[in-house]
């Protein structure tokens, strides 16, 4: 689906694409996935194959085994045809009395005017007077049996080897992508919708894996089969082979014609599907609004209209594309009839043995199947390569500067942070911060205030080196943070964001995230300091309760307390805090306030502040507006200056304070 909702708790049942590939070829075609066109099929396709380079040896083995397996299975019918000939010879041999030579029998037939039968008989090797030579037939059949079994075994080994190699390649691709995520700058993730990145690292990789699995072995086998079968057909009879060959352009023309007509119908089908789904999504997501505004009838009318359109377009698409199947079958059948008739005539004239015709019929049946298969693989490969392109794009994205080879580190971590003439811009032509200087003494609190969207998190981003300054420098205890390793820098900073993040695991594990190897006692102590111990104990499994990012059973406020506990455990010397603005109930709010205050004491703290008490007590207040710092000072200094802060204070707090006083 084009517009899938990312955090859907319930997974849509997967489309039938993981099914056993060989037999579902046509089924997949009928599924009618929108064919995603790749930008540069050839180059990207090559690069996909490049993923298999480390498996060269295995891939070579796969090709060799496939060649053997296909060759053997192609020879099979020809030898089986020989058995038919032996049987037929036996049938004729019985009718010729023993003592009469084959030549005499032929002559006798000619004398009777049965020229055709005479020709046929002349072309056979018969032993007059004897029936079917079961010894010979048995030997041939045993050979065939051996060939089939061996071919099958080769096929199994080949498929298993390919499976191993392909899975390893996909695994490597996943690892590459995961490692790449670690090296990408934060700006990469901020600049594009999260769902987009997520879909690349999940859906697209899955799709590549599936495409490789489903197409690789089969394309190889199908191509080899086509070559092998063609060779055998020409070997048996060039005339019949030519007749059979006509079916290739015929199939191609039919496929192309039908495909050309079906394509716009599929496009229409997916367009209408998209429209209808979008309408459904909106009507369900805005269900309450539709009701409150009394718009059900309009909504139902629009649905009816689009549902009807979808019906019309999907019927056309499915009908036209469904025509391929019977048309191909028709061509195959015509071919069958021609081979049967012409072959029969040739046998009758003695130019061909009956066994050969039988073999030929089997070949011509084997021939059309890989053709259709390769055709249906084309779509799949298109979509796989399109996915690969999106993944490659991610792999090719510029990475963040690597850490300096010999990183510096402050001798003693006291927590003094200095911004020296710092400049920063997200966009090249949009300066955001220009010449910001600021000193945070160890143990001081810096409150960052300003209206929503003023860019308060930018400062945090710079301090944490999620983004790099474009001018000036930031020092930590005298050391330029750009010359430290990111790990070293971040290890000294604790962060509690409003946008809490918990991973799938127990509460204890989530708290222990703050420090590797923390004991249960330490976790509990941290939880107690963060005032979340009591809440955790009310849960059925206590600290072992499993939670996830969607945080079922844990409210937003409680989640924030857990992340505070995490920061407690990390014992950082510098803190970055983000006070909650809304959707936390008042009692939890008090707990969060208290916990943050305790956490702050004795540490240098940068607080994105909303609470008057926090702001008033801060050692420095930074006032931000429209992405720039407009004022800097203490509460009383800034009030006296009657600037932006004074206005903000008036609007937000003064009245409230007066009211309560």
């Amino acid at each position, binding site marked *: 689906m084009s517009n899938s909702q990312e955090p859907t708790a319930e997974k849509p049942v997967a489309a039938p694409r993981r099914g056993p590939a060989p037999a579902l070829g046509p089924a997949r075609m009928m599924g009618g996935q929108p064919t995603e066109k790749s930008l540069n099929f050839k180059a990207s396709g090559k690069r996909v194959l490049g993923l298999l380079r480390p498996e060269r040896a295995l891939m070579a083995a796969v090709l060799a085994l496939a060649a053997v397996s296909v060759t053997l299975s192609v020879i099979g019918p020809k030898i089986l045809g020989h058995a038919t000939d032996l049987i037929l010879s036996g049938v004729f041999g019985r009718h010729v009395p023993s003592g009469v030579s084959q030549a005499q029998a032929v002559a006798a037939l000619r004398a009777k005017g049965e020229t055709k039968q005479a020709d046929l008989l002349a072309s056979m090797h018969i032993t007059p007077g004897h029936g079917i030579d079961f010894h010979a037939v048995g030997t041939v059949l045993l050979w065939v049996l051996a060939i089939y079994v061996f071919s099958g075994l080769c096929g199994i080994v080949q498929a298993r080897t390919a499976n191993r190699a392909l899975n390893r390649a996909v695994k490597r691709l996943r690892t590459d992508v995961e490692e790449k995520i670690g090296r990408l700058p934060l700006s990469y993730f901020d600049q594009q919708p999260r769902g987009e990145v997520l879909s690349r690292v999940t859906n697209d990789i899955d799709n590549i894996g599936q495409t490789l699995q489903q197409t690789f072995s089969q394309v190889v086998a199908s191509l080899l089969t086509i070559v092998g079968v063609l060779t055998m057909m020409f070997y048996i009879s060039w005339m019949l082979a030519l007749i059979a060959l006509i079916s290739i352009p015929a199939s191609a023309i039919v496929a192309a014609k039908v495909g050309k007509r079906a394509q716009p119908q599929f496009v229409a089908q997916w367009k209408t599907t998209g429209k209808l789904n979008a309408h459904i999504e909106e009507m369900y997501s805005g269900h309450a609004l539709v009701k*409150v505004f*009394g718009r059900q009838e309009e909504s139902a009318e629009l649905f009816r209209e689009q549902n009807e359109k979808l019906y019309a377009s999907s019927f056309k698409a499915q009908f036209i594309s469904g025509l391929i199947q019977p048309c191909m079958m028709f061509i195959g059948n015509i071919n069958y009839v021609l081979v049967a008739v012409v072959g029969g005539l040739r046998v009758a004239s003695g130019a061909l043995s009956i066994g050969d015709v039988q073999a030929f019929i089997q070949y011509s049946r084997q021939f059309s199947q890989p053709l259709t298969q390769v055709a249906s693989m084309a779509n799949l490969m298109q979509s796989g390569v399109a996915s690969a392109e999106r993944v490659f794009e991610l792999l090719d994205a510029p990475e963040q500067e690597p850490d300096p080879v010999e990183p510096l580190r402050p001798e003693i971590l006291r927590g003094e942070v200095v911004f020296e003439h710092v400049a920063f811009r997200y966009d090249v032509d949009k300066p955001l911060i220009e010449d910001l200087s600021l000193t945070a003494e160890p143990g001081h609190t810096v409150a960052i205030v300003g209206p929503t969207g003023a860019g308060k998190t930018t400062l945090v981003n710079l301090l944490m080196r999620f983004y790099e300054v474009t001018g000036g420098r930031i020092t930590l205890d005298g050391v330029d943070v750009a010359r430290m390793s990111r790990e070293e820098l971040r290890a000294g900073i604790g962060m509690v964001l409003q946008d809490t993040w918990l991973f799938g695991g127990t509460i204890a594990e989530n708290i222990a995230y703050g420090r590797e190897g923390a004991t249960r006692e330490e976790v509990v102590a941290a939880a107690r300091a963060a005032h979340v111990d009591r809440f955790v104990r009310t849960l059925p499994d206590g600290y072992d309760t499993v939670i996830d990012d969607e945080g079922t059973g844990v409210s937003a406020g409680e989640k924030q307390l857990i992340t505070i506990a995490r920061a407690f455990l990390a014992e950082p010397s510098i803190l970055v805090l983000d006070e909650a603005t809304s959707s936390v109930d008042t009692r939890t709010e008090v707990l969060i306030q208290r916990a943050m205050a305790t956490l702050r004491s004795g540490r240098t703290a940068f607080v994105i502040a909303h609470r008057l008490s926090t702001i008033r007590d801060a050692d420095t207040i930074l006032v931000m507006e429209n992405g720039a710092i407009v004022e800097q000072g203490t509460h009383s200094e800034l009030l006296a200056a009657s600037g932006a802060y004074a206005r903000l204070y008036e609007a937000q707090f003064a009245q409230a304070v007066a009211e309560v006083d």
Partner: protein
Amino acid sequence: MLIRLLRAHLGPYTRPISVLVLLQLIQTIATLYLPTLNADIIDNGVIKGDTTYILQTGGIMLAVTLAQVVCAIGAVYFGARTAMALGRDMRASVFARVQSFSAREVGQFGAPSLITRSTNDVQQVQMLVLMTFTMMISAPIMCVGGIIMALRQDVPLSTLLVAIVPVLGIVIGLIVSRMRPLFRSMQERIDTVNRVLREQITGLRVIRAFVKDTHERRRFDTANEQLTDTAVRVGKLMALMFPLVMMVVNISSVAVMWFGAHRIDSGGMQIGALTAFLSYLMQILMSVMMATFMFMMVPRAEVCAERIQEVLDTETTVLPPLAPVRELRRSGFLELRDAEFRYPGAESAVLRNVSLSARPGETTAIIGSTGSGKTTLLTLIPRLSDATDGSVLVDGVDVRDLDPALLAKTVGLVPQKPYLFTGTVASNLRYGNPDATDEELWAALETAQARDFVSALPEGLDAPIAQGGTNVSGGQRQRLAIARLLVRRPEIYLFDDSFSALDYATDARLRAALSQETADATVVIVAQRVSTIRDADRIIVLDEGHVVGTGTHHELMDSNDTYREIVLSQLTEEEAA
């Protein structure tokens, strides 16, 4: 479930389905007839040297082929038509059902799940039906027909089928049955890998801040390892499937040759029959294979069908009135009398004994901590849910007796999570009042403090809005949602925490403008922030579903502990002192 769902929806299509089955029958018989004709060519033409017979029979074969293709195309036509119509009908009934739902049922399923059910799940069932119609129906016909034809060729040789068909069935069955649990665990492991990756991306800042990259890498590697492990195991089974099936088929043909030779030698059978028999064997085995794969697909569609049926089986709790009241004084007097709301089977009610009244020209505020039932209370008024006890009255009429259209005209709501529809700013603002003029829209934007940012947009009122309103900020979305309600001009305005994303200054300005705009209307505001509701004519304090206090800010500060606690928590004790 699948059968029940299909039976309910395929009912109207009995006629095209019978035609379809008939066409498939003819088509299959035609296909099966070809090898017999081929056998005749060999036995009566080739061996006897009768060229005319060969050509004549060839002509018949051609005619049969033509009949076959015509029937096959006809089958595709009826199959596609019926399957797509089925999908359309299922979608329509799911959609209609969901429209009738109250907030409770929607919440119970969750909107994303309902969307999946109406789109993806329906599609899955529809595709299964289409495949059944176009391909699978012919499998059993082919199997039975093939057996009959094989018997016609030679009865004793047909006994081979008794051995071969079960062997193939068992081989495929064994592999498939082993594969199914593996498929499930593979899906789970894919989900795990994807979850780890998802967490890495959503939690990027935290991971980097806590320097947990290596930890995350280990977590990922384990998941990746496990996934690959299962994928390899699935692959191994898959690798067996095709060669094994081919081996069974090939060995069978060798067996047919061997035993067929004996039958021919003893004069019980002709050589052409042997060739035909081989063809039939292939056709029978192919149809067995198809049928087996079909069984693999059914469970998937079954799950989808269950989920669709679940929606169809859910009855709405908000029933339309039998004898709706269509006339109303429309002054906007709102009253709740001992209203209770309780989820079925829940131990305690969300709301209990809530009585309150809100008069035109007044602002009534509702405050309370999370989970106190504020939002639920609001949903009772426009009947997004119905009170399970007590009643909600608008201008003296129980809302359950009111004509839904009239109720919608009288009561307007700005929900907690404001939702905007795809379109433009203007189309969203006109949602409740399609005839509003541009001047009216601007006036509403002015009141909602949204005029500045809308006029700053290059397209102004025609600026595009993405689905859900994701292309504007949370605060802008809230203001647009407020403006949308102002354009509608209902008698009763309900604001559910609609100012939370605004900063204090904007909040204050908006409320000041709003109070002039809604001077004659009844306004009910739910809020977390004390500053938002301090000036209300009446404040109702909710705690755990009860009304624990009613009065003005000053009255409540003096008399109500819960209220005081809320106020103090927001200002901190020192400021209040």
